[in-house]
């Protein structure tokens, strides 16, 4: 067995803060849309949603800083290496108890599928939600000063809502995939404590 550090303190804080923020924004957002029974009340839901949006944005700014200064951004560079093997693993290998095709390393802790998924999350879904959210919030001002069409708000709203549905789907898939580690709780535990005990054959030495 080999204990390796996967997630530093800031990374764990970022992850769980982001999870809390996004889940609360899902609840408030879907209440505002009228798809959930009353949780916060419309007015408070709107306020909470907006305050959390600014909080999340702030968190993201600091996290970008963290990614850059620590070089952790390299973890998200997409790669084709072992991509096919990963897909095959999830489709068949995992049922047969085949070994995980990708070994973990401190600076390569994400498998090729994770890299793709999280990169998409970071550069696609979240920016789309932030942009449409900001346009949504400032729409009355924009409409008033730029004479925007009423259907512009409809378009902004539809994209924002589709993004939100996407995030909910992401959440379900994400949580399920955490159970595919060494044991079903290995990955979640690692995200809480920061390290993971890996059998020697699931780890590769720095060369």
């Amino acid at each position, binding site marked *: 067995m080999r204990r390796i550090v996967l997630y530093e303190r800031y990374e764990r804080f970022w992850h769980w803060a982001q999870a809390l923020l996004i889940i609360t924004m899902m609840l408030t957002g879907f209440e505002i*849309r*009228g798809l959930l029974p009353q949780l916060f009340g*419309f007015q408070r839901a709107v306020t909470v949603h907006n305050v959390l949006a600014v909080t999340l944005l702030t968190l993201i700014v600091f996290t970008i800083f963290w990614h850059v200064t620590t070089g952790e951004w390299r973890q998200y560079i997409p790669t084709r290496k072992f991509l096919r093997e990963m897909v095959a693993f999830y489709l068949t290998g995992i049922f047969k108890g085949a070994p995980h095709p990708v070994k973990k390393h401190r600076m390569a802790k994400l498998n090729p599928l994770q890299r793709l998924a999280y990169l998409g999350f970071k550069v696609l879904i979240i920016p789309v939600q932030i942009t449409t959210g900001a346009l949504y919030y400032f729409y009355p001002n924009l409409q008033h000063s730029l004479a925007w069409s009423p259907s512009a708000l409809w378009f902004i*709203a539809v994209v924002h809502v589709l993004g939100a549905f996407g995030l909910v789907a992401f959440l379900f*898939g994400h949580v399920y995939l955490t159970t595919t580690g060494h044991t079903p709780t290995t990955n979640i535990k690692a995200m809480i404590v*920061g390290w993971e005990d890996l059998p020697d054959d699931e780890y590769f030495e720095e060369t």
Partner: protein
Amino acid sequence: MPHPSGKSSPPRMRRILRFLLGLLVLLPLSVCAQEAAPPAPSGHGSFTAAHAAKARTQTADHSKFKILKGPFKDGDGPAVTRACLTCHTKAAEQFMATSHWTWNVAKDGKDGYGKATALVNNYCLTIVGGNTEGCTRCHAGYGFKDKTFDFTRQENVDCLVCHDTTGDYEKERAGMPNPAIPLAEVAQKVGSPTLKNCGACHFFGGGANATKHGDLDDTILKAPRAEDVHMSRQGAGMDCIDCHASTEHKVGGPNYVIPADRREQPKFPGESISRMSCAACHTNAPHASYILNRHYLKVACQTCHIPAFARGERPTNTFWDWATSGRLKDGRPYEEKDANGWPTYTSMRGKMVWERNVKPTYIWYNGNLKFTRLTDPLPASRPVVLNPAEGSYRDPNAKIWPFKFHEATQPYDPVNNTFVAPFTDGPPGTGAYWGDWQMDIAIKKGMETAGLPYSGKYDYIRTTMLWPITHMVAPKEQVLKCTECHARKGRLAEVQGFYLIGRDRGFGVDFIGFAVIILTILGVGIHGVIRYLHGRH
């Protein structure tokens, strides 16, 4: 084996991170603080104080003036006016320039938008068909019997109806004072107009208390604060003229032209005489919440702050069915009343509906109501909207406003395609509708008197009218909740032309969204089940 607390961040980096984390917590807090900015000064206190101070602002004790001691002959209003004019030499001249005197307004370069001319309404229809004498009980003048009335004679101005402070003054047909009124006593106690002066006519629009407006009736004189925070004596105790500020006898806020500041720019009362606004006192950002304040771009203050009108004890008329009028029992007119004593049928007017606590109708409105005159062709809409509101989402001056929506049926000339002016108010034998009960004769007589063409054929048509609701502002505890409008079937369900969050929720978008979620759950569920069945992780 490395220590879990990490080895990669040098201490300096960690200090920077810790500092940034601190900011992370502080920044959103400061946003919270912005949301909960200190409430704007309410201004209630100052108005109450202003009201109390009003009594002190008079610089003349009119009981000291010899000329007001009279004696005046019983019912000789013009004599009182002559006395007033000995000091207030320009008062009559000023007043004669206002619509309170002319009962006629020009709009968009066209004349005739007034009671004394060609305006058609949904209640008593028009006065020009020979009904002037009964209706001019509410004219601020003496002797307005018919179109021969001399609008240039200064002594015909009625000073007392607006300036009486005793509450004893009363007008009769053609606007003459009730002969029983001690004119000298009233004349010696004149002062600034209060609710009662304006209310003597404006509470009784449509012919009786509360009939026309829905947000104005005499219950306001004794209303609890919940009925009207401004005019209730338990509320701010304001008078009409505190908002309808006046200068040179011109009273602010004529409905036929433009009733209010369309953009709610803060102006102190009186700064803009013809356009008043809530913002004049409350500013255009009176809420602690930025989002609520921003509603003022598209939503009138009245929309949220007047949850219902006719909130006093008096119901307002919402339907007036002239088509069923004129039924007689044993040759005599009769009345039917509901359990509360409100007329459900009268031979004079037909079927009527009276309602209390009425939810307003909401319509885009830029301050312009397009009225219909006797000389205009019938509007094309069915039912005919006599005064459609102008405005839309795209109109930068328009807001969603609350209205009393009034429905009626009334006679019209299907050949000339115009409305008609029946002669209603007169004794039997004159051809008046309320004397002889013959609508065709009443219309013929009325159109002759009005000097307008009539084909000889009439029919009834459904007409509707919009009355902007702006009085009876409720205490803030009764303000509309967000979900009254931000809901699928809320109050704004019918208001078109824009996307409203909480209301406009497309089935297609939600279907796609839920499909994606369900497919994801199914996918991972099946994957998990297979893993479980294989007995592996």
